[in-house]
């Protein structure tokens, strides 16, 4: 486990001076080891213009090594989906760079960009919406195969589709190939979306709340299928979810990054994040989550927040974005300048003055 943590996500946030400040081990993402598959380098994204500017993602840097899992956790509206779309190349960041195997995807030439596109796939949240209702499973799966000349003819495409369906446990595949999405259950549909993502042999999959809409009773089998993809094919995952329990389960030997209102507040190996959260927001979040265990959930210590209001993206608080709610707020410091995400050792990164200065 420790080995995979050592090669885990390395990152920094907030400009090059993070690396220059003494005693701080964080290095700018650009110095990360070459095994990194995908890198977000001080990425930001602003939507809208003029007065109605919404800063959805602000100065986010993440590095995901090959074969690793990074879980991005945060509440609705915190920018995790936008970050995922930027990583998948579906959205151009307004600041910063996205590096795939070391090269900037937005300055790639056509051929290179196409290669990147094929290497990166996204699994969407809602399998009801992400599959064309008028296309059979075969058509859904064969389209990318034929488009990218991954198969020579239709017979080959059919065989390849059968193979893919078997990988996602839709067996016997012959039963599913000619079905329409409406003939499948939610779990089966999501498996088809996964199979579609696998058609082009991707090395990186962005799973955006991929199991959130699936009934709890069948979630576990979908999660273990996704883990198997990583083990068998070395697929790297950016797993986006609002459910910390799910993130913990999926990325137990990997890394979790916690996002709050557009920026990353803490990154740590999963067991450490769960046992000893450092950022006050992570602490509040962990204490607030109800658990499916009556004695445990009723005896959890509570964290009292100073305010219940989530700041609006149109009117962000000065300094640390969590300061209006933070129980450990330091006046004259937290409300002045936003803390940088800095390394605190053991592969952990925190953006909080309380942690970095004490």
């Amino acid at each position, binding site marked *: 486990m420790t080995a995979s943590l050592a090669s885990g996500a390395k990152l920094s946030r907030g400009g090059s001076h993070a690396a220059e400040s003494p005693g701080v081990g964080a290095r700018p993402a650009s110095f990360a080891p070459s095994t990194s598959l995908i890198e977000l380098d001080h990425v930001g994204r602003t939507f809208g213009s003029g007065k109605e500017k919404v800063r959805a993602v602000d100065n986010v840097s993440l590095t995901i090594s090959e074969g690793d899992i990074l879980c991005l956790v945060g*509440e609705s509206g915190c920018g995790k989906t936008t970050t995922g779309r930027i990583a998948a190349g579906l959205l151009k960041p307004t600041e910063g760079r996205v590096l795939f195997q070391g090269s900037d995807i937005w300055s790639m030439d056509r051929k290179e960009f196409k290669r990147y596109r094929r290497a990166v796939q996204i699994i969407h949240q809602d399998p009801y919406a992400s599959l064309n209702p008028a296309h059979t499973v075969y058509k859904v799966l064969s389209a990318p195969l034929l488009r990218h000349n991954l198969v020579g003819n239709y017979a080959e495409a059919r065989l390849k589709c059968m193979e893919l369906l078997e990988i996602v446990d839709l067996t016997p595949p012959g039963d599913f190939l000619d079905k329409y999405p409406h003939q499948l259950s939610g779990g089966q549909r999501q498996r088809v979306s996964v199979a579609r993502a696998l058609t082009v042999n991707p090395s990186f999959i962005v799973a955006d709340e991929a199991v959130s809409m699936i*009934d*709890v*009773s069948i979630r576990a*089998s979908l999660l273990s299928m996704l883990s198997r993809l990583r083990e068998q094919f070395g697929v790297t995952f950016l797993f986006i979810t609002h459910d910390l*329990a799910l993130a913990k389960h999926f990325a137990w030997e990997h890394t979790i990054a916690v996002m709050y209102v557009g920026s990353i507040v803490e990154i740590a190996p999963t067991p450490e994040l769960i046992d000893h959260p450092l950022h006050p927001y992570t602490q509040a979040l*962990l204490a607030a989550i109800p658990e499916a265990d*009556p004695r445990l959930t009723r005896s*959890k210590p509570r964290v009292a927040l100073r305010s219940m209001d989530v700041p609006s993206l149109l009117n962000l608080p000065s300094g640390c974005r969590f300061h209006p709610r933070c129980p450990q707020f330091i006046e004259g410091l937290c409300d002045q300048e936003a803390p940088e995400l800095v390394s605190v050792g053991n592969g952990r990164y925190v953006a909080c003055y309380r942690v970095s200065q004490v």
Partner: protein
Amino acid sequence: MSKREQSLLSWTEGPEADVPLSVRDLWVEYQAQRGAVKAVRGASFDLYKGESLSLTGESGSGKTTLALSLIRLLPKSAHIRGGQIIYRRDGREYDVLTLEEGDLRQFRWKECAMVFQSALNAFNPVLKIWDQMYDTVKAHDYTDREKVRKQALELLELVQLESERVIDSYPHELSGGMRQRVLLAMSLLLNPQVIILDEPTTALDILTQRTIIELLKELKKKLGFSMIFISHDLSLAAELADRVATMYAGRIVEIGNVYDVFYHPRHPYTLGLIKAVPTVTGGFQELVSIPGSPPDLIDLPPGCAFHPRCPYADERCKQEEAELTAVTRGHLVACFHWERVQNDLGQEWQLRDQ
């Protein structure tokens, strides 16, 4: 008296006065082109005074239909095929299913209020909170504006809102958590004995969820109403419920004290659900998933609706459906094999999953 009727009657423990609501053998169907969707099939339960009862189950298990039929707010395509919903207050009792339109209107809100799932859609967007509250009260023949306003302000304070500001706001000016709290305050306006909450925290952020949960606990303690809440989320049931009822394919398959249901589940489906949900605290847990998918409610499997997914199923399960029977005091389970479930506590699940 048939065996079935006896077992139904023997449920109520203690005086009936402590049971504001009893549902007996309720059947609800929806009419669809392909046939009848059997959404609720013979549900029976009691709601005790001052308790919170959680209806838990996956989507399509009939929990919302069951809750809507309690106040007869079902859509037109639904038909109640049979059963009784007995409501009691101050020594009087009546069957909600036989109420006339006018009485029904009084029953709703004044006796039994409902808080709907999406807090935004539950409001009229062009009316201020005060106007909506006054409208509600007016429909129930209270017309003393000053008195109503005072009470509305008190209730808004009770749900921890800045009452003076919120009462003159439009719904869009409030955040999701605030709207949920306003809805709660509104549901309490006429001091109902029973409150039904449909997924009260689902659309909210985790930190907001927490405040709503704490608020519900506090209000229940202060005002002493009984509460039924619908949730697909087991953790909410663990947090908030005194008793839990698990539903599967329109039937209540297990009902009991929250600790009994979570720590000593006797129905294979409840057990499977509990094993499928990870907790945040603690080490890594193996998760188990229930094979197959929920059944088609138009074309249910014969016998127990869960048998195609159940590792304990045998020939009998394919032909007969078990009745809810008491396994310990107040803990009822509808499964022939509950003793086997008790003995191996889900080892069967692991075996199947390998």
